[in-house]
């Protein structure tokens, strides 16, 4: 078994990918079950599930791109775009239901004014709730989070593919690393966050450290498993 420069670069790519996933989750505006009852701002589902849904859609796009090219940049970019398309389609169709079925105007309870549109928020927050719907700042934040998740997923997949050359094994391993980092970040934000304007967002350094430790361990396993086991 030998460790050359390439192995170290692959290892670093996996670590950076994991960190991107961990930080990206902080951008995704998820309100959990209360949001599905229009009781909280954001998307009505769990953090990990949504991050996984978008990041893995990006992984599918990145996998397709990697089957035709070895250049890392289009692979990362197409991973980001695939994830952003999934996240935006989800948020947009969710907005239709908030606006046209529940009939609630979008409002965040964490800020008085939307940082992007400067719209006032408190007058539109229904009594007994902490906001509802997906205001512009949450939508933009979700798009950024999806892009980071997509790049992260692709960045984990790329070196794994270079190491073992098996798309199925690399994809499953990438999904595993993705889930670990998404869950760690989700614990850090206690399951719900509105986006980069939420006060909880300031806690990201804690998730950064936790994801760093976990991804270093997983990255070591990933780069050593093929040399140690003698390939597949």
């Amino acid at each position: 078994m030998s460790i050359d420069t390439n192995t170290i670069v692959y290892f670093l790519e996996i670590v950076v990918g994991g960190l991107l996933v961990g930080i990206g989750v902080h951008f995704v505006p998820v309100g959990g079950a209360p949001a599905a009852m229009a009781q909280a701002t954001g998307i009505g589902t769990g953090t990990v599930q949504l991050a996984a849904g978008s990041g893995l859609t990006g992984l599918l796009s990145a996998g397709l791109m990697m089957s035709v090219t070895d250049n890392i940049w289009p692979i990362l970019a197409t991973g980001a775009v695939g994830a952003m398309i999934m996240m935006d389609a989800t948020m947009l169709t969710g907005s239709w239901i908030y606006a046209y079925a529940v009939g609630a105007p979008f409002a965040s309870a964490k800020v008085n004014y939307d940082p992007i549109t400067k719209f006032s928020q408190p007058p539109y927050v229904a009594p007994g709730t902490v906001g509802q719907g997906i205001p512009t700042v949450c939508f933009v934040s979700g798009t950024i989070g999806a892009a980071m998740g997509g790049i992260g997923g692709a960045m984990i997949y790329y070196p794994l593919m270079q190491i073992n050359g098996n798309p199925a094994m690399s994809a499953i391993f990438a999904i595993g690393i993705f889930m670990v980092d998404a869950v760690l970040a989700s614990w850090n934000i206690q399951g719900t966050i509105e986006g980069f304007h939420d006060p909880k967002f300031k806690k990201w350094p804690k998730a950064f450290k936790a994801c760093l430790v976990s991804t270093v361990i997983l990255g070591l396993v990933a780069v050593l498993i093929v040399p140690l086991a003698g390939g597949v």
Partner: protein
Amino acid sequence: MDAFGMGLVAAMGALATVAGASEDIDSDIGSQSNPNSQVQLAAQVGNPHRIYNKAIAGEPPSNALWCTTAAIMAYVLIEGFQMPLLFAAVAGASLAALFDGVMSTSAYLGRNASQARFNQWIYLDILRYTTPSIMAHVWITSFCIVLISIIQVYVLTPHHPFPIPVIALIWGLTVGAIGSSVGDIHYGGEREFQWRLFGQGLNTMLSGQIVRKAEAGLRNSIDNAWFCAKFGGPCTGMGFGLTVFLDNWRTTVFDPVTQAGAAIAMGLFFVIVMNLYNFYCEVSARRKYGPYPGYKGDIAA
């Protein structure tokens, strides 16, 4: 770009739309995912009901399980026994529906039995005629997703390098995430609480006070499917259909080898358009409904 590829991408988009809609209606009939918290709470706050209650897992993992189960069976039939693709997809979806039937039944019996102290009954008639409709919807979802995976791996060029079960796992997770984020709002935010004032989110004080009476008689889960199939289901289908169609369209129209930049730029264009559309929705909702009348703060609307 070739016409055959475009036709396939359009077929994938259509299959994804159907899969998304049936996935959402399956979760509405079973009260899975987010709205389950209210159905579960209802009996505990003194409102026993006749709504089906199955929370096997979160929607994304459970759908990933059905779709992967179906895809593994299809994969074995195709690779090991050289069966026709369509037959393999049908057989796989049937297996997934059977798995779902077993888990739904045990979830309904277990959850309601554990609430016996709150006077919540197990209704055998509900179990008998609701479980098959859940299984039917799971069949449709997993059939469509296995077919999308088969198209991506065997037919559409460039062929996807992942095997069918991995693609089905990812699409299953994605369709569940979309169903949980989109369709659940229609069921949890609107259908479960139709007696509160229209146009506001659920007041925390009303948690668990779900509607238990139907247009005639007592409400059951089939009534909920009838309501949610009008808007929540199609919206979920639209969300998943857009994801599958737009993501594959850009790499089919533009050759990923020579025109990778154009494919990425086209994706970014879609993202910007969707951001603008959401802004339009926000502005139109604020204009139509206005601020809440009881607001007493000092920030102008």
